[in-house]
């Protein structure tokens, strides 16, 4: 009867496609909105995950998240280096500085100043030039996405058509000379500002004069040292906040989750997706079962056992669930593959299809259960009532 159950499902084209589109749309909304949400949230701590060398992140105790810069005194790094058990500690500058392009355009940019000696926390993927080129005089490395967008030179000094910023171009950072020595691929920031890498000492020259210019200190323990204990020691000895990498990432994420309306906005869309699924697909599937109730009744009269009829409804529900989910997740994947990552934050982790599948299963099980209840209560003698 399995084949007959499927034929009954596919044969009612209007309802079948209605259910399929309902489930597909619900899956699409849930998975696409979740993926954009995760993508956006990932951008809030992208710099942390892009800096795998650092195991400990040291910041001002009042700093709430990665970009909530409350700079430290430049001498703080010396105090940190004095703590036993640390292998190394390097200063980090992370701040907004005005960049002037060769054609005079100005653009506020995220400048990251990394340790001059070790170049720890530099971009992980170079497209042109090398990280060592930062050691050259006035050297800066620019994010490739910014070269094509915010740093597009619209009126090149040499004349000709607009072109992307390129290696060898001379910029001004806070009215100080800087030369592009490399192009890198950097994780996009939440606010999508262009990212410029340079050395720490050069960055604090670019920045307006201040006694507090060290944004954070990155550190790593000696082998065998307990990171949590080291963080506690740093807090105790310096009064600064110190976090293992995962904790700092979670702190940043938690800030965005709890202090902004972003989760509510995306959560609303995701709930809407579920409601659409219930309203369209669940309701249509239930109606489909109701429409077929007289045939189930006839089959029950003819000798179909209740488990067999419930099996037919279950198979129909499972089939639309798989197809609807496949359709929705397929469109979402296509969306993710097609839309450029620098335009839209999109990150589909393995949890997202699981969540969407659970929602689809919930919708189908719910509507099938209602249908099954009708089948269970079905009196075969009803077939004689015309």
């Amino acid at each position: 009867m399995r084949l007959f159950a499927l034929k009954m499902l596919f044969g009612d084209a209007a309802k079948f496609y209605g259910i399929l589109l309902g489930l597909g749309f619900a899956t699409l909304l849930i998975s696409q909105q979740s993926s954009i949400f995760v993508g956006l949230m990932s951008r809030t701590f992208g710099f942390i995950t892009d800096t795998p060398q650092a195991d400990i992140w040291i910041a001002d105790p009042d700093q709430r998240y990665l970009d909530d810069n409350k700079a430290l005194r430049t001498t703080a790094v010396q105090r940190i280096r004095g703590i036993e058990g640390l292998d190394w500690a390097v200063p980090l500058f992370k701040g907004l500085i005005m960049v002037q392009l060769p054609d005079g355009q100005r653009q506020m940019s995220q400048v990251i100043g990394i340790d001059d000696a070790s170049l720890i926390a530099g971009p992980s993927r170079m497209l042109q030039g090398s990280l060592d080129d930062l050691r050259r005089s006035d050297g800066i490395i620019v994010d490739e996405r910014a070269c094509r967008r915010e740093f597009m030179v619209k009126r090149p000094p040499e004349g000709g058509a607009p072109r992307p910023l390129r290696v060898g171009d001379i910029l001004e950072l806070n009215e100080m000379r800087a030369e592009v020595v490399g192009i890198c691929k950097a994780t996009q920031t939440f606010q999508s500002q262009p990212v410029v890498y340079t050395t720490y000492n050069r960055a604090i020259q670019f920045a307006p004069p201040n006694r507090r210019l060290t944004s954070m200190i990155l550190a790593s323990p000696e082998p065998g040292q307990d990171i949590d204990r080291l963080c506690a020691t740093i807090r105790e000895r310096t009064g600064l906040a110190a976090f293992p990498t995962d904790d700092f990432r979670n702190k940043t994420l938690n800030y965005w989750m709890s202090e902004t309306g972003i989760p509510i906005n995306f959560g609303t869309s995701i709930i809407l997706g579920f409601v659409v699924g219930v309203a369209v697909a669940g309701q249509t599937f239930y109606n489909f079962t109701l429409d077929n109730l007289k045939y189930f009744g006839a089959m029950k009269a003819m000798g179909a056992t209740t488990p067999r009829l419930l099996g037919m409804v279950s198979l129909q529900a499972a089939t639309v669930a798989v197809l609807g989910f496949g359709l929705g997740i397929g469109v979402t994947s296509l969306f993710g593959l097609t839309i450029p990552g620098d335009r839209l934050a999109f990150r589909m982790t393995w949890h997202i299809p699981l969540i969407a599948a659970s929602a689809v299963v919930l919708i189908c099980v719910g509507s099938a259960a209602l249908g099954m209840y009708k089948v269970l209560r079905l009196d075969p003698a009803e077939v004689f009532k015309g």
Partner: protein
Amino acid sequence: MSIAASRGGPAVLARGVSKAFGSGDARVIALQGADLELPCGEVAMLVGPSGCGTTTLISIIAGLLARDQGQLEVLGTDPNALRGDQRTLWRLRTVGFVFQQFNLIPQLSVAENVAIPLVLAGVRRAQALERASDMMARVGLSGRERSAPLKLSGGQQQRVALARALVNEPRMLVCDEPTSALDGATGQSVMELIVETCRHPDRAVIIVTHDERIFRFGDRIAHMDDGRVDRLTDRHGTALGLGAPERTALGFAE
């Protein structure tokens, strides 16, 4: 001559069968001590005004409803004594159904509709479709196996329903108003087919109908009224002498 002895053995033996629905003020008595004895090898008709209990009685005989009181044997079995799926399987093996509205599943082909009882009985699909095709030939629908039921005329759909009812070779055929959705001529031809294909010494046919034009196909007509079988006649209206027997003896009070 006893009815049971007229042809074959007794197909239905009902004594004092009662059935009520609902409770309290909403209680409706559908059957109150119905007696009926039908032999194998005949076409019997249950007739009577609306609400007289024909549908309830045929549902109880076919094992679709449980009676409240009375005794019943259908082809040697009391369907009430069977529980749950046992009764369902008994119906599958024993009873073929023809419904007033045909109840053909529109998404399946005609042959697949006919094959349903076989598939339910565990016959492999290919073999079931082959047997369904043979049965369709018997009801004059050869070549329409792949048609959609809704593409057929009412008469053809009822033939399909008949083929579906008979494909499992049940010993009892139960028809509920088989001609009510058909015009006169088509109804007559469907009845001719039922009688022609079903009259067999080992098989019983019970038809519930209000259509007097088909009374002539019945060997025995049970006239019901007010939840009881009032009288039993042959197709010409001649009493067969089994009115309302032994109600008192069986202990059924008003």
